[in-house]
């Protein structure tokens, strides 16, 4: 009965109640969206770095190195020489090492030169087709297949750089050999190809560009590494003319320079024997690494935590390469982003406070205007505690419906962001309808604020002097 009257009272003043509801819903939506985004970002960030203990790359910002090589977001810091990296890729404490080579893209989707180990890390097999085996063969992520409209057997040319526009390597056509299942990771938005493809393209490409004068060479603006300035986008040196198809004797090329650091170490998992020239398929191509062959980064997993302590320090101190630990960098990133979400959070709570204030004003004004009604209720046998409950119920109805509205609004906003914004950052949010403890705490706090706002008018209704009120009516 009390709830019914409270509800009717709210309906009796639809504009005022609507305003309060809107304020509540908006503040709840902002706060719950923040909660959801924080949770999702954390999950996403952590899921992505699973299986990567350390990233080896060119000197520069460690965060940038992680973002570019693990999350495929930022531009790479530069390139490193494969022969330098191999010393660590073959380190006894390293469980596996996955070389990656960035530089090109197709319709904004990155083409990553790597090995099968990249897929092994995710324990993934193509949902359709096979893995890449030869140079210029690619396996594409599920999103790429859907959005770029690529199917098995299609061919396409990569664009130089990571943007939508750039030099198109028309003379080199990639062929789609496999399509990966959807994972919800940035992998969905990648195009994977053997390292050799990247080298092949850029070996010739750089030649062409040298003739043309590479004026737009640094347009992608990741020239941190002055050492590699000239070749930073290019996995291969200009004088590395070796196409993957043209075989040269691996030992003839390398043994005199690297001693036991054999290039097949790049495919540590696949050719642990070191007899690269005996193994068929793409691994064979590692035989053609020139001494100056470059890659962008190496993702590594250690065999034991000891290496985590030793290797990064050793690399950072003794080589001209950089070792970055994803876990550390992601913590740093989260604390950097934290200040931004903090501002939004404050805004959300301000809105909530505003909503509570408007409820307060509405109820104070309402109980004043309706004091005669309240007195009437008591004269009809309604106890004081019921009057208290009536006022609190009005706030509670508003609060609960506002919070529910805000919850729906936040999920709607999350869905919208997913459609419009996050795909660009390789973020894939899932479990949108999950209600976490943080959600409940936020909702509880907002409801408590509503009830607090109702407490003063409710107590006033409780202490109403009915005789005086009725006499003065």
């Amino acid at each position, binding site marked *: 009965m009390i709830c019914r009257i409270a509800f*009717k009272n709210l309906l009796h003043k639809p504009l005022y109640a609507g305003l309060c509801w809107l304020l509540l819903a908006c503040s709840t939506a902002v706060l719950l969206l923040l909660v959801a985004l924080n949770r999702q970002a954390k999950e996403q960030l952590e899921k992505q770095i699973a299986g990567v203990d350390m990233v080896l790359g060119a000197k520069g910002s460690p965060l940038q190195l992680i973002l570019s090589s693990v999350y495929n977001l930022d531009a790479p810091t530069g390139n490193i020489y494969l022969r330098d990296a191999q010393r660590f890729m073959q380190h006894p404490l390293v469980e596996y090492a996955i070389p990656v080579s960035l530089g090109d893209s197709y319709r904004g989707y990155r083409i990553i030169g790597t090995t099968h180990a990249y897929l092994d890390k995710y324990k993934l097999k193509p949902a359709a087709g096979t893995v890449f085996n030869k140079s210029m063969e690619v396996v594409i992520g599920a999103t790429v297949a859907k959005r770029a409209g690529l199917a098995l057997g299609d061919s396409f040319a990569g664009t130089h750089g990571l943007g939508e526009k750039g030099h198109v390597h028309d003379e080199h056509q990639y062929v789609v050999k496999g399509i990966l299942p959807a994972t919800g990771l940035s992998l969905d938005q990648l195009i994977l190809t053997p390292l050799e493809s990247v080298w092949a393209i850029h070996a010739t490409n750089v030649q062409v560009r040298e003739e043309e004068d590479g004026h737009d060479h640094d347009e992608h603006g990741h020239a941190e590494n002055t050492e590699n300035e000239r070749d930073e986008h290019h996995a291969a040196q200009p004088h590395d003319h070796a196409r993957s198809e043209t075989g040269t004797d691996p030992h003839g090329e390398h043994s005199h320079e690297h001693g036991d650091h054999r290039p097949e170490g790049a495919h540590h998992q696949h050719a642990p024997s070191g007899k690269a020239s005996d193994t068929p398929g793409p691994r064979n191509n590692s035989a053609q690494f020139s001494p100056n062959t470059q890659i962008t980064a190496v993702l590594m997993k250690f065999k034991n935590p000891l290496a985590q302590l030793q290797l990064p320090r050793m690399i950072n101190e003794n080589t001209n390469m950089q070792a970055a630990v994803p876990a550390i960098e992601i913590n740093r990133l989260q604390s950097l982003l934290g200040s931004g979400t903090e501002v939004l959070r404050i805004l959300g709570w301000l809105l909530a406070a505003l909503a509570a204030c408007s409820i307060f004003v509405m109820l104070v004004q309402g109980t004043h205007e309706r004091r005669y*009604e309240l007195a009437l209720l008591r004269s*009809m046998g309604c106890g004081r505690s019921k009057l208290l409950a009536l006022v609190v119920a009005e706030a509670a109805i508003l609060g609960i419906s506002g919070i529910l509205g805000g919850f729906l609004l936040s999920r709607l906003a999350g869905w919208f962001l997913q459609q419009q914004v996050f795909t660009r950052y390789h973020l894939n949010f899932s479990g949108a309808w999950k209600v976490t403890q943080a959600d409940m705490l936020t909702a509880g706090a907002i409801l408590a604020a509503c009830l607090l706002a109702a407490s003063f008018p409710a107590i006033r209704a409780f202490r109403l002097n009915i005789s005086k009120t009725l006499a003065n*009516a």
Partner: protein
Amino acid sequence: MIYTKNLAYAHPNGGVLQFPDMACAAGEVLLITGRSGAGKTTLLHLLAGLLRPGSGEINVAGTFIQTLRPAAMDAFRGRHIGIIYQQSHFIAALSIAENLQLAATLGHGAQKREELQELAEKLGISTLLHKKPARLSQGEQQRASIARALMQRPQLLLADEPTASLDDENCMAVAQLLAEQAQQQQAALLIVTHDSRLKELFANQIILS
């Protein structure tokens, strides 16, 4: 049904109001008149248990109401006392029917649809039941508030200037209706008024001075 003894009320500003002893049996009408400021409304509030007397006793349906605690007083009032005010006020957000039902629910929990309909027809407001109170005329509101008081099935009906804002025709109609209904429900009816038109209708009178 109701009687008072040595009833006095101490006003917060110091003055003390003394009231003559009075009694009214079930089905009877007692008219309480007096000039403005004589304490008519105060007396009504005392009888309704809205105010606490300074001294003396009030007995309604066998209970000395001055001894009741606030919560028990509210419940007792809901069950036994129906009040009709000079200015009819309703819960503005509820329809007339809902207002009437609310009175019954708060009073004794029962809530009979037929009873409401029957009463509304007797008072000539059956076509107004779905309307919001603000849309009714003064006379209609007054009749509706009588209906509300009767919905509580009270043993004591208190009316505070029930006819002051009504024209002669409506005044007579309302006064007769009140007397009739009190008679039918076997309730004691106390009318507090300075309306001289009513003095001609009811013989049983007390004059406050």
